[in-house]
């Protein structure tokens, strides 16, 4: 179940309908529709999936099946400052796991979650092509290299003002 409960506004529903129509209300275009709608909303809450299912005349269980199959799709909104920790091989062996643990502890959230104030979200990714800087952390578009667990507090602090 979605952790966030929202009620969609009329114009938001219309926007989703519009997207579905652009793809001919075709079930075969479900992935494209989800992709586009996530682009608009930032994520795919249950309510949005339901509107899409109704419009395409397919069970919402099928939409949910697709959303949960592809890691690109997310049901929780990303934070204002999305934090990504690289857990690719190079970063991993240089201690990414410990850095990740420190972020979890400081932010009190798990991977895939967003802080209650909507400021930070936590995710893992595999290799940003900067293995020389391992372990690497991304906050939004900014890259931090050779991050040690002790640096975590400071990094978060940069965005807390």
């Amino acid at each position, binding site marked *: *179940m*979605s952790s966030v*409960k929202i*009620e969609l506004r009329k114009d938001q529903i219309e926007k989703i309908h519009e997207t579905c129509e652009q793809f001919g209300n075709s079930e075969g275009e479900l992935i494209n529709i989800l992709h586009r709608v996530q682009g608009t909303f930032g994520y795919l809450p*249950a*309510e949005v*999936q*339901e509107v899409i299912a109704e419009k395409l005349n*397919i*069970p*919402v*269980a*099928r*939409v*949910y*099946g697709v959303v*949960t*199959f592809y890691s690109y799709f997310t049901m929780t909104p990303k934070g204002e400052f999305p934090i990504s920790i690289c857990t690719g091989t190079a970063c991993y062996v240089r201690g990414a796991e410990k850095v990740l643990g420190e972020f979890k502890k400081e932010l009190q959230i798990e991977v895939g979650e967003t802080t209650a104030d909507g400021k930070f979200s936590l995710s893992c990714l595999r290799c940003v092509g900067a293995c020389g800087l391992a372990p690497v952390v991304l906050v939004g578009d900014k890259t931090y290299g050779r991050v040690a667990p002790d640096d975590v507090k400071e990094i978060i602090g940069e965005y807390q003002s």
Partner: protein
Amino acid sequence: MKMVNITLDGNHIEVPAGTTIYESAKQVHIDIPALCYMDLKDLNIRNRPGGCRICVVEVEGRRNLAPSCSTAVEEGMVVKTNSVRVINARRTVMELILSDHPKDCLTCAKSGQCDLQQMAIRLGIRDIPGQEYAEMSTYRLDTSPSIIRELDKCIMCRRCETMCNDFQTVGALHAINRGFYAVVAPAFEMNLEHSPCTYCGQCVAVCPTGALTEVDHTGKVIAALNDPAKTVVVQTAPAVRAALGEEFGMKPGTLVTGKMVTALRHLGFNYVFDTDFAADLTIMEEGTEFLGRLTRFLDGDTEVQMPILTSCCPGWVNFFEHHFPELKDIPSTARSPQQMFGSVAKSYFAEKIGVERKDMVVVSIMPCLAKKYECQREEFMVDGVPDVDISISTRELAHLIKQANLDLVEMTDGDFDLPLGESTGAGVIFGTTGGVIEAATRTAYEIYTGKTLEKIDFEQLRGMDGLRSATVDFGGQEIRIGIAHGLGNARKLLEEIKSGKSQYHAIEIMACPGGCIGGGGQPLHHGDASILQARAKAIYEEDRNKKIRKSHENPFIQQLYADYLGEPFSEKAHALLHTHYFDRRKRVFQI
């Protein structure tokens, strides 16, 4: 038809182009093992995702092993189904499937009926290498009024998904997540109870493992039978007698009506009655309602809702309440036979024998899982006490009989008790697709025309096609009848009604393939649809053997109306035998 020549395990065979390797092998009596594959031929239901990989075979010239269930034959193909490579691969696949499967076979509800267990036996699996390192799935248990989902036991064969989506078009279940966490579940992993599930139980009927099973109420029945303060009354649905024998090794299609009655008496029920009696009662009420609507319609009344739809099937009722709530005024208001029985047993019969309502327990034996939910619906309770207390399936009855050390096969034939055990052939055929409408036709024809039927059998209403239509001549008035079994077929008729294109006067709908004989609570058919045909044949045989074959001629039905209800559709009949429907269309934000 273009034919193709192939060599399979050294046999030269000729098969139609497009045939799968799996099907071709059957021609030379080679039964390739398969888990996810399912083909209910006559019913046009097929599941072959090629997912389990148990059915892999070696095809000469191909680098990889091929799943035989989804690989079509080609001219000159040379196939080996039992080479060392195949056997090793198959064993590895099986070991991987078993590695995260719970090993509680001894206490599993599916034990003895589990396709996975049978496969492990067949492949001679004695050890699961790496078991000690294997991570086990810990999916939560989901219990609804009818069905239990224990997804740790799901092997992702997706048969349930095929039934729920392709055949039933209910869309409650879908494969979700990926890899180790992949299971079949409702949207947002909500409980089945909150999903559009109709409890038809067809997912349970095809699940190869213990992942989907019925809620077991046998313990409650035993407790009631052992409570000296309670008068325990049992009713048995028509389809049960045509299938119960299978649980005791009898041939599909063996009627065990008399033996079942004797077994129920041995189990300790105070009164052994028949849902068929209530089926006759349903015909009186539904038939009267139909004729009322028909007469108004033919007189040019534009307000009247046509066609009338049958309402005996609780899976079907759930379906239109969830998916077509805007049509909820079209089905007959007649309660299902199960509920009519409970209502009459706890009023008319309880008064007759001087037992208070609270001291009577009504147990129903049903081929159905939706009945478990139906009897818990609030509108079928009086002061919080349900008309039908406990509903158990044919399979659960078999367990009760076995636990009581009774040998059903050797039982002598017993007779149902009176008055609620007397029924006609019309009541019996409720158990198969087309039966309810045939029973209604027998009675409606005679009342409408005032003439006696020359021929009681309406062959044009019978058969196994998912969608059927027939015309019956009511003394010059043509009555057009539609029949659907399987909710996907029902959906087509409902769409017609919604768009104002329906040409029918009356429509019978049953949720399960073949009607109740193929219900979710019946002995498992393990993919063999011919079993359903055999059960249907048995139902019609029972009808032919009945002295009385028209509901309105049942003397105890006549007596019930004379002594208690007045006439069909009377105020009292309305209070006890009719119901109303709800809009249950579910939206996420309401959950």
